């Protein structure tokens, strides 16, 4: 019994300590960020390409089908109240405010986050990071900061693309397949959606992008330098990112309302 309490206590203590180290790591990355953008933009651009442009396939395909299924589901349920013309409004609000940022963040963690953490973990396991330190190259600045910045910059764009293609998917399903009037689909959406909703979505995308990239880079940098350790780091990235994104989503929604 006593050992259980001791274990819980030490686990809680470890959690707090890790969380603190995580915050300090974040500040360290932020400190080097401006210099990296100004002096070595090529590195950052390459990482934007790796995290953003290469994620486009999954984002666009998933976006289309999420929008399509939303259109289908909402149409079925709105038809009971003879309110099918509001499909556009409801899908737009759901996508712009909630599903766009959250699903994109989860997909981003799955595709780009795992790529980042496994790449950095492997660099650590094969001693590339220590080799850089021996050559007086700061591995945090050279390797971690560009990847972090690449993720942060790519996320808002990915969310915007996801949302737009989602709306297009809903349009295809509602207008072409379910005979909703295209005029009322877009016009009702334009009346109800306010710029503040879009601002909320963009804010969420920036926050989620920061969290997802930060967690991926952190897990990779602190991976146990073995094959099993890198695998574990990759899994942890996805799991912790998912949990963090959903908790933050609730908090941001509560604040913005």
């Amino acid at each position, binding site marked *: 019994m006593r050992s259980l309490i001791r274990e819980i206590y030490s686990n809680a203590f470890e959690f707090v300590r890790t969380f603190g180290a995580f915050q300090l790591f974040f500040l360290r990355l932020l400190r080097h960020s401006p210099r990296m953008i100004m002096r070595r933009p090529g590195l950052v651009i*390459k990482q934007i390409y790796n995290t953003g442009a290469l994620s486009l396939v999954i984002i666009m395909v998933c976006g289309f089908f999420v929008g399509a299924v939303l259109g289908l589901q909402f149409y079925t349920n709105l038809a009971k109240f003879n309110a099918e013309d509001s499909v556009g409004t409801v899908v737009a609000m759901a996508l712009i405010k909630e599903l766009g940022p959250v699903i994109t963040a989860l997909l981003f963690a799955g595709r780009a986050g795992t790529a980042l953490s496994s790449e950095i973990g492997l660099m650590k396991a094969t001693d590339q990071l220590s080799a850089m330190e021996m050559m007086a190259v700061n591995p945090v600045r050279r390797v971690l900061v560009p990847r972090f910045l690449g993720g942060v910059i790519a996320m*808002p764009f990915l969310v915007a693309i996801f949302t737009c293609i989602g709306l297009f998917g809903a349009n295809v399903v509602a207008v072409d397949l379910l005979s909703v009037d295209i005029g009322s689909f877009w016009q009702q959406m334009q009346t109800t959606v306010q710029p503040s909703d*879009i601002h909320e979505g963009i804010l969420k995308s920036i926050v989620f992008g920061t969290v997802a990239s930060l967690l991926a880079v952190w897990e990779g940098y602190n991976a146990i330098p073995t094959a099993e350790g890198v695998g574990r780091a990759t899994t942890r990235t996805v799991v912790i990112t998912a949990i963090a994104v959903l908790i933050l989503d609730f908090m941001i929604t509560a604040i913005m309302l």
Partner: protein
Amino acid sequence: MQQTRSVEIGTGLFVLLGMSALFFLTTQTTGGDGFSADDTYEVTAFFENVGSLKSRAPVAMSGVTIGRVNSVTFDADTLQAKVVFEIDSVYGSIPDDSDASILTAGLLGSQYIGLQAGGSEDYLEEGSEIFFVQDAIVLENLIGKFLVNAKSGGDE
């Protein structure tokens, strides 16, 4: 070198695609009903009850949006609600004895101000006040009146 070029082209295309998506979101999905005019003039009206009228609500005449509500505040001097709204300067010939009523769009929609033209020769201009107003319909008062009428009708 080839690889760097394709990386840069890919990133450039990605950012362009993202920006156009953002642009599409902000322009095509919002504010269709938003009223935006460069030149407007402000008009004031005092109401006993504004219901759920909010700022940015449309101001319509014959059903066409010609302006927007700027502010809804409580005026401590007159103990009434003060509504300040702006009308597009293109519509410069609205008679100054027009009446302003608070109407509801549809059955359960949001409230807006409807103007009905009067017959005066003078027109509304910057800073005018509309004197003929009709308050928002409060459901409880309506039901109360109905009940009183029904009761008195029953007694007769």
